[in-house]
């Protein structure tokens, strides 16, 4: 078993033009910074990205928007990115906005080997257009498909050489489900240890789901909304 790679460039070396990739993170919290930077360096184009958000203009997925590497974005909320809005309104970028819970659960279904989910989110709205709808116990549900993605890029706090992962605080968000859902999953971690050093009881994502793992470097961990209170 040899899952450890030396850096992000090596980890993403076979991500090619026109592939579909999932990226963990909520806002800028828990995003795979190293992998995104490596994708910008590699210059792959025509990507379809599945991620809750699209980063900001100068960070996260926003960096790949600036270089026009994305063909399509599937997200629930894209409010903090002016370049995104520009590309969307000009028709350069294809965008599918879907409810956040639907996004999370379509990823979950992929990771659990299930083809569809039924969710009430979006019933009676434009999200329901063209979708199969069914009534269970008197309530309407939309049928939504599991996501198929070539790669999942996730960020964990700690990981071991077997690919076992532990996330930290709200940086967990979409990462555990995406780790399960990718046909190939790449994990970048802040702390990488030998297999056996993590407490098996504390592992969030078992290593079976992770194909490549590397120690991330120079994490910026930008804060989108720095809100504080004064000490009294």
């Amino acid at each position, binding site marked *: 078993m040899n899952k450890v790679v030396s850096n992000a460039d090596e980890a993403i070396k076979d991500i090619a033009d026109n592939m579909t990739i999932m990226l963990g993170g909520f806002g800028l919290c828990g995003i795979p910074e190293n992998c995104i930077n490596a994708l910008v360096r590699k210059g792959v184009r025509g990507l379809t990205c599945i991620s809750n958000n699209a980063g900001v203009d100068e960070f996260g997925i926003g960096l790949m928007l600036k270089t026009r590497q994305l063909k399509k974005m599937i997200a629930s909320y894209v409010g903090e990115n002016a370049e995104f809005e520009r590309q969307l309104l000009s028709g350069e970028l294809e965008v599918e*906005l879907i409810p956040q819970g639907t996004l999370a659960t379509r990823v979950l279904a992929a990771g659990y080997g299930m083809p569809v989910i039924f969710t009430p989110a979006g019933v009676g709205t434009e999200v329901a257009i063209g979708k199969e709808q069914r009534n269970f116990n008197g309530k309407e549900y939309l049928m939504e498909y599991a996501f198929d993605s070539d790669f999942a890029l996730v960020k964990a706090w700690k990981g071991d050489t077997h690919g076992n992962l532990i996330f930290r605080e709200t940086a967990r968000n979409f990462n*555990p489900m995406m780790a399960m859902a990718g046909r190939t999953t790449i994990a970048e971690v802040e702390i990488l240890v030998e297999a056996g050093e993590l407490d098996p009881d504390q592992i969030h994502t078992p290593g079976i789901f992770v194909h490549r793992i590397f120690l991330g470097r120079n994490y910026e961990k930008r804060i989108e909304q720095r809100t504080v209170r004064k000490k009294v």
Partner: protein
Amino acid sequence: MLDKTGIAKRIAKEIRDGYYVNLGIGIPTLVANYIPRGMKVVLQSENGLLGMGPFPFEGEEDPDLINAGKQTITTVPGSAFFDSAMSFGMIRARKVDLTILGAMEVSETGDIANWKIPGKMVKGMGGAMDLVASAKLIIVAMQHVNKAGESKLLPKCELPLTGVRCVRKIVTELAVIDVTHQGFKLIERAPGVSTEQIINATAGKLIVHGEIPEMIID
């Protein structure tokens, strides 16, 4: 007339001991400051936290710890972290007792629009569609009229919908209004606001039964 704080204070009176509550961005966030004394309430942040606390002290911000509005926050004792699928599992399975959110429009049948203005704003629905599709109790905090002076309480929403027949109560700067099977029903007036003012500011069908009490806010 109520200011934003007043709306938050009035909504806080709807909270009951032991509630799990999801607060949306804007006025709903302020409700956390006015939870009645002695009540234990757990705030859910749909990005993966139960037990959201106040903003951190300056210098103690943690980039791994944010709320659904991407603001730096803290936890309170007894809090728990989880992933996004589990978060929407607890929402969909109706474990969250109360959802408070903002709106651009609400219809007299309880439809809500708050995520899109065609041709103008394309930010996305985030978790709002999931929340309104499954919440046990939804209270909307919003202004009664928009910046152009038009009512936001309508017979039918004009903007793209977030959810249908889901809003139960609306608190605005003018009034507390319930959404009933017969339409909007005026429950309370804001201090200094007349029933006529509220009728004039409400485009949808508004039921007014007898004397409408003025709301009491501490």
